[in-house]
């Protein structure tokens, strides 16, 4: 089974801090994704990566950056955390070989910015 591991289930940070969310997958997937999940809005794509050192903006990239130095690891960075970034963050991965490959998700990180 695919395992997508997010480093923290719960995280509390202060406004202005630089915050790192880490995600690791163990199935050699090419694609990795970061979403934020808010009630009534579903999941919205922040950034995704289809290869090492490659990244593309999703629908809501403002205030975020990402890093993918190794194939199995995809990091989301909040450069200067703000209260409106309080949310649930989900990481996912998928194969790129063949179309329509489903995404596999981690448990999520509930981030609170005070």
């Amino acid at each position: 089974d695919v395992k997508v591991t997010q480093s923290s289930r719960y995280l509390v940070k202060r406004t202005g801090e630089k915050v790192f969310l880490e995600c690791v997958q163990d199935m050699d997937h090419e694609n990795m994704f970061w979403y934020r999940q808010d009630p009534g809005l579903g999941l919205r794509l922040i950034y995704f990566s289809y290869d090492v050192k490659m990244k593309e903006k999703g629908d809501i990239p403002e205030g975020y950056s990402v890093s993918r130095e190794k194939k199995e690891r995809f990091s989301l960075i909040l450069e200067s955390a703000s209260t409106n970034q309080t949310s649930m963050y989900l990481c996912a991965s998928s194969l790129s070989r063949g179309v329509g490959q489903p995404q596999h998700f981690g448990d999520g990180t509930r981030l609170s910015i005070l």
Partner: protein
Amino acid sequence: AQTVTQSQPEMSVQEAETVTLSCTYDTSENNYYLFWYKQPPSRQMILVIRQEAYKQQNATENRFSVNFQKAAKSFSLKISDSQLGDTAMYFCAFMMMDSSYKLIFGSGTRLLVRP
């Protein structure tokens, strides 16, 4: 731009009964994929079922089946013989058949299965 709409924020069903969750989408594409994902209270999102738009046959997966109406751009999920473990958020999602691999999600339906 593609959009996915789930018009039922919350639903409930008695254990062992059948429930249908609605999903509509908007796209000008002819080839794409549709998914239903389940997010139980423990929070990990898992794939329930997948449908290829070029296939007319509705996908089924044990107690889960879909009613895919391509012309109407409708993709509903039917859960038969509902179980307490089906209590979860359910998300409908759309993927274009291109190289982006991106999913577009609906806002979700919270399903409660009552004992």
